[in-house]
């Protein structure tokens, strides 16, 4: 399998295109012949991270790097930052406003859901500056099916 990398730019509050980056990423993974169970995990985690950036930040970018061993995704945003990452990792904890909940998001499952689907996750945030969510999913045959 070949390697690939690239970047998608995300615009805050652009709900019309929210999810388009993850959708494109899914297409790239399908084109590379990645197993479907792995694609589902990557796509779900990427979509949650993308939605977070679009909901909370002014702008952001999603970069990806795919090698035969690993898929790495990094979503960096210029948003308000997360005050308490430990709390944000708890299922059901959310600071999302009502209009976001009415859209079906902001139920406090985003980061926990990324954690569930990724093999490795790091969240770095600085109040007033932004948040960077980085996660990876292993592609070696044994790991690829372990969380499917």
């Amino acid at each position, binding site marked *: 399998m070949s390697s690939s990398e690239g970047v998608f730019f995300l615009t805050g509050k652009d*709900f*019309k295109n*929210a*999810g*388009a980056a*993850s*959708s494109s990423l*899914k297409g790239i993974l399908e084109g590379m012949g990645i197993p*479907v*169970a792995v694609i*589902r995990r990557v*796509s*779900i985690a*990427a*979509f*949650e991270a993308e*939605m977070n950036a679009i909901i909370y930040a002014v702008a952001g970018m999603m970069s990806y790097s795919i090698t035969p061993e690993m898929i790495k995704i990094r979503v960096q945003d210029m948003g308000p930052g997360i005050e308490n990452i430990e709390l944000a990792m708890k299922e059901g904890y959310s600071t999302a406003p009502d209009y976001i909940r009415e*859209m*079906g*998001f*902001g*139920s*406090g*499952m*985003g980061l*926990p*859901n990324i954690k*569930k689907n990724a093999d490795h996750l790091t969240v770095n945030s600085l109040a007033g500056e932004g948040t960077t969510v980085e996660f990876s999913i292993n592609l070696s045959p044994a790991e690829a099916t372990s969380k499917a």
Partner: protein
Amino acid sequence: MVIIAPSIMILGDIRDLLHAAVLARGEDMGMEIERAYCADLMSDVLAFSISNSLLITGLTNTQVIRTAEVATIKAIVFIQNKRPDIQTISLADEKKIPLLVTDLSMFDTCGLLFEKGLRSCSGLEF
């Protein structure tokens, strides 16, 4: 409690059972559905649904289609005559996800499908 083996349903039969209208991908009515998940919270769909299931929801925005796409949902039923806009329908068409809309409530929709033997994504059998 009587344990019934879960049934596989044909999407066209689901359409007839729910007296549903088809909004997208009418050509896919022969599709087989093995499991269903219902929610208005897309994060719940992302967290708890399984591949190739049917999504039953009252939410009609484009994120429902995006959610279905990444969670590999096979088809969507909108309840209580909640109709998505043309943008949402076009996206579903592009992503090859059939859309149905029924007048029935969430409870009645799920109840009728359950009665026919369709089961949830939880893996629990009744």
